[in-house]
């Protein structure tokens, strides 16, 4: 379709010129370009979700089963056997409130660290901002999160736990978890392009993280003088925040620790973006 408007004007006069040249140094996010590609972002997330629920025959059942079983086991071991404190809240609700962000985080980093490798044929054949891949992999975990959230409501009703207004703050803490996962996913995804055994690191991180993060216990069992250091694990802040919203005042976070987690997330995110953006130009060559 050659839109020859008049003899001397052609389509190229109406389309802005694109300049391709080597980029050097620190590269930030090109928001304008991301905006242009926003639909692709949603399409990829939509694909991941669709495929997930088509492939696993038990789809939703799995999204419910996994956290519930983990919760039961943790409640039995940490609550009933080890008799760890629960600040008078139901141990089940308390564990599940932590599993909610933890499962999201661990699924998201697993998926986004694989997102580039598994889209190899896209990367070597089409241009689009590569950052869309880990981003959509991370956000596609939101569906599992919603399902788990419904389960949480069920558990709270079952345990006769009160519902609090502070639950409306949850989206804020979800964002916190999202950025933690996204930042880590950017690092792991970009590393995975070059080093294919990053997967083992991720598996290890996810397994270990479940026990060193305050999922099966409350973070106040950590001795006071270690709490700040402990909170350098970003998921500590996220989980404390979730418990606070769901279970109320007696789960108020240890604020210095909370801000330490918050700062860690920001740092991981910013360095992740810079690392990703400066390595992405080689993805198509080495993947």
């Amino acid at each position, binding site marked *: *379709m*050659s839109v*020859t408007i008049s003899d*001397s*004007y*052609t*389509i*190229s*006069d109406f*389309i*802005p*010129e*694109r*300049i*391709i*040249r*080597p*980029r050097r140094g620190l590269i930030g996010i090109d928001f304008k370009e991301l905006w242009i590609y926003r*639909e*692709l972002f949603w*399409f*990829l997330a939509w*694909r991941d979700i*669709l*495929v997930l629920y*088509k*492939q696993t025959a038990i789809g939703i059942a799995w999204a419910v089963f996994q956290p519930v079983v983990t919760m039961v086991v943790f409640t039995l071991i940490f609550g009933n056997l080890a008799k760890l404190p629960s600040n008078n809240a139901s141990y089940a609700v308390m564990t599940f409130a932590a599993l909610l962000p933890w499962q999201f985080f661990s699924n998201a980093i697993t998926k986004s660290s694989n997102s580039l*490798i598994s*889209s*190899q*044929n*896209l*990367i*070597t*054949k*089409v*241009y*689009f901002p590569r950052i869309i891949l880990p981003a959509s992999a991370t956000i596609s975990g939101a569906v599992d999160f919603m399902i788990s959230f419904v389960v949480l409501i069920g558990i709270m009703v079952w345990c006769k736990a009160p519902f609090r207004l502070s639950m409306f703050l949850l989206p804020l803490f979800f964002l916190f978890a999202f950025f933690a996962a996204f930042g880590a996913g950017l690092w792991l995804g970009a*590393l995975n392009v*070059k*080093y*294919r*055994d*990053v997967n083992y*690191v991720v598996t290890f991180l996810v397994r270990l993280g479940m026990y060193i993060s305050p999922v099966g216990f409350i973070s106040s069992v950590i001795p006071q003088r270690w709490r700040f250091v402990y909170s350098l694990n970003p998921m500590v802040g996220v989980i404390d925040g979730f418990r606070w919203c769901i279970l109320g005042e007696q789960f108020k976070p240890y604020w210095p620790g909370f801000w330490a987690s918050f700062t860690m997330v920001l740092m991981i995110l910013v360095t992740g973006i810079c690392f990703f953006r400066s390595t992405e*130009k*080689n993805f*198509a*060559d*080495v993947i």
Partner: protein
Amino acid sequence: MSGPIIRVEGIGKKYRLGSTISYDTLRDHITGSFRSLCHIISGNKKSKRGREFLENQTLTDNCEFWALKDISLTVDQGEVIGILGRNGAGKSTLLKILSQITEPTEGEIRIKGRVASLLEVGTGFHPELTGRENIFLNGAILGMTRSEIKKKFDEIVDFAKLEKFIDTPVKRYSSGMYVRLAFSVAAHLEPEILLVDEVLSVGDVEFQKKCSGKMNDVAKEGKTVLYVSHNMGSIAQLCSKAILLDYGKMVRFDAAQEVINQYIKNTGTLAKTGAIKITDRMYTTRGKKIKFSQVTMRDSRGNVCNNFLYKEDFSVEIDFDIYDNFERGVIGIGIRTLNGSLVTIAHNQDNNNGNIEDIARGSYKIKANFNNILRPGIYSLNIKAYEHIINGETIDVSDLIQFEIANSPKEGELMPVKMRSGLVEFEVDWSLEELAASFSYI
């Protein structure tokens, strides 16, 4: 005033030899540097791994090379430009830089307009999703907006003739249906600039025909096309100008016919060794790696050579390393004429009745004996590797070895009939019978 639609200034692209094979794992990276350090200290020469690591290390440090260097050109809107050059000359790299898939190491490009490439056909198709879902996904990947796809949806389905199966997962499609759907989406793109990279060697015949048809249409519509091909005939027919690349340099940018003549002249004087060793170049298909470490041609007595007598049988040997299990893996050998027409293509699984087995990770040597029916002339050999599955992509290494069928026959055979044209000579059993009284001599 309208300037050129593409302006390329001093583009260069540096690759690292072996960058795809060393440091494959983080563990090797860490233990490798640690061990080689230990072995340097202890002077132990036995550890192969440490030494290999060191060798790779120097390779990656020193063996950078320019796949493209100092390319400058301008293309006006509506021009159809052919790109010629031997295997490894940098043709694909140039297209990849133009489509922004990979970044140039130096130089600058200014482009006005949407760029699409015909090799993107089917990119991002997911076997679990239905035809409908894949149209939307693929359209978005190729740069269409959702409303654009919606508007063209019926047309796309209609063009692919897949109304009945549009809600079936594409994993149930035959490969023909799959290609039709994929192509149909690509055909409804409306780029200002179309890049075509050796389409004619990818996919089946039906697909190739569709691609050249599409190319023709696009060129007639006055769009800008950059077209890589080994087929001189189609370049001469479609392109007004052509670029000749050799070892990453632009040797010539001129009227198509001039460039074609020069290319044929240059390739005629190619090094005539019968064995080519291809080192360090990894090819990947769907993330699986293969390396053709050596390709050898031998005459009927087993000598390495690329000059055969007329009717003298020859063989081709391919040494290759496979790094990942190739599902229903197939290796193919093709023979082309110098102007790019395919004479034949043979696959190692042709005689297995469709029972194609996987090729597991490992090193192999494959040997193919050809019963020579080629007429005298110069031909070129190319090899392929692919997985015989939906979504499989073909690795194609073209113009590997050029070989000549001489004008003198093997002992005991008659001289070839010189005046005759054509490429092959079948063994034909003739019979001549006289039919009684079917014809009256008036």
